[in-house]
């Protein structure tokens, strides 16, 4: 039985996998049709015909993860690390009968590389589906508070 605690535990675990760089385990959280989306507009509705920073399926996420470990991936020498500081997720929907599980989580995200440290703030929205006894990510949407500002490299995942 999926409860609100199942959802919050899932979100905390996801952040922990990213912070500990367990990339394959992180990819395993996605549904085969799952997407990772970083909009470029305020309350954006359309990921396809409006510009986004990222809108990636599992194939593209695998490319990113594999690239991070690549012998000739010079932008990862030295490697980046990240840290997620999450507020308690707000459950938007927890309806096992309808198969609807949604949460919105306010966060502060830190990405470092070498001597540099960049900090970002925003909200992560999870659309989850039940597969067997557990949950998978159908859509992870990451809205930055300053989505329209010019950033330097963001190489890991919020």
């Amino acid at each position: 039985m999926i409860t609100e605690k199942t959802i919050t535990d899932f979100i905390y675990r996801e952040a922990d996998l990213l912070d500990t760089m367990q990339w394959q385990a992180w990819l395993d959280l996605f549904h085969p049709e799952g997407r990772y989306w970083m909009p470029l507009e305020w309350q954006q509705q359309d990921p396809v015909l409006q510009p986004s920073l990222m809108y990636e399926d599992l194939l593209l996420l695998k490319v990113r993860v594999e690239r991070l470990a690549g012998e000739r991936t010079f932008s990862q020498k030295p490697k980046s690390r990240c840290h997620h500081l999450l507020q308690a997720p707000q459950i938007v929907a927890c309806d096992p009968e309808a198969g609807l599980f949604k949460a919105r989580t306010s966060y502060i995200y830190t990405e470092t590389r070498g001597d540099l440290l960049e900090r970002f703030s925003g909200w992560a929205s999870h659309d989850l589906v039940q597969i067997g006894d557990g949950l998978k990510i159908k859509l992870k949407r990451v809205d930055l508070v300053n989505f329209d500002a010019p950033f330097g490299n963001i190489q890991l995942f919020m």
Partner: protein
Amino acid sequence: MDRYRNNAFAVEALVRDTEVHRDVYVDPEIFELEMEHLFPNSWIYIGHASQLSKPGDFITANIGRQPVLASRHTDGAIHVFYNRCPHKGVKIASEPCGNTGKFFRCPYHAWSFKTDGSLLAIPLRKGYEGTGFGDAQANEGLSKIRNVVVYRDFIFAQLNDNGVSFADYFGESLSTIDNMVDRSPEGKLAVVAAPIRYMHTCNWKMLVENQTDTCHPMVAHESSAGTAVKVWKREQGASTETPMAVQLYGPFMSPYEFYEQSGIRIWPNGHGHTGVANSIHSNYSDIEGYLGQMVAAYGETRAHEILGDVRHNTVYFPNIMVKGAVAILRNFIPIAVDKTLVESWVYRLVGAPDKLYERALMYNRFINAPTSIVGHDDLEMYERAQEGLKSNGNQWVNLQRLYEAGEQADVTAVINGTSERQMRNQFHAWAKFMTIDMDSHVEAAE
């Protein structure tokens, strides 16, 4: 230290036939002089007329360091002004775009201006009576930039009256903009969204050079495009249709021979493009219904001529790159000697299928975003160059590839696609537009 100010000879000496001195990338004084001379002397892209579709619409931009403001007047004309109130210098508009209504109103003392820049009203105007205000520059309203050309909806401005007209400055290079616009069945482009913005900690010229650097993709992008190709081969299974994403990444891994025969075309004044015979954009899937629309609009022959011209990157000197086949424009905006803001715009081809816009947006986020793995590859190289150039061991950057003795500058030519001649072409133009209005240059000529 004024090593270069009003010293055209010293500036010109930074550019040799086959190499350039590292000061062009790392010296703060050279950067200052670029802001004072190079940018005001060149024709600079301000924005697109579709961003000014209604009277009262405005956009803001910078030419070098100087803030400018473009507006659509009630009679339909586009005007470009220095973005400062003639009273105390306050910026009239601070947002990237908007609609000001019937007039601009300075937020400080409520001086107001019509959308053609003329002074409309000053509160308590009688305070200026008998002061000779009629002769003051402030009475003229917003200072207008006289050299403005709107070419097929692309707005360019030149601050200095140096006699280099728009037509002379760009010449035949405008054919890339023509091709991009012609790719719309209605011959019209539209900006419908904000650009992707990406901050680079490097000199702006490194980005411009990279646009026609065809010997780096298969090396620097092995990590991104190479991995994309590798993962797709492993995961594709029985799938015979290459996804749009893989079609976009894959060609970056083309071998040297591909780029060699693709060719580069150079034009006078530092403009030039890669992908003459064909390009990395040549083999994208057809989009349903598009060819039919183009044939209906232009006829069979002309439609194929337009779609067959798949130029890769066209550099419009000094600081934009146009990718006609994908309808993208990248603006390399100098912020400091080691800081560059890149704004990458996608145009919608009016009347064309949505799928084309979808592909262009995808390309833009794959290649030009702070979250782009191809972008990560490139920025890493620029940052390392910005650091490495501080070394005194060798103070010159080599641009010698396929140099031929007696190479002419300011000519049109089609050459081997792995040549660094377009970079040499840019630096020739750089020296010219840096020094064209330097005092000592005039004295020396006498």
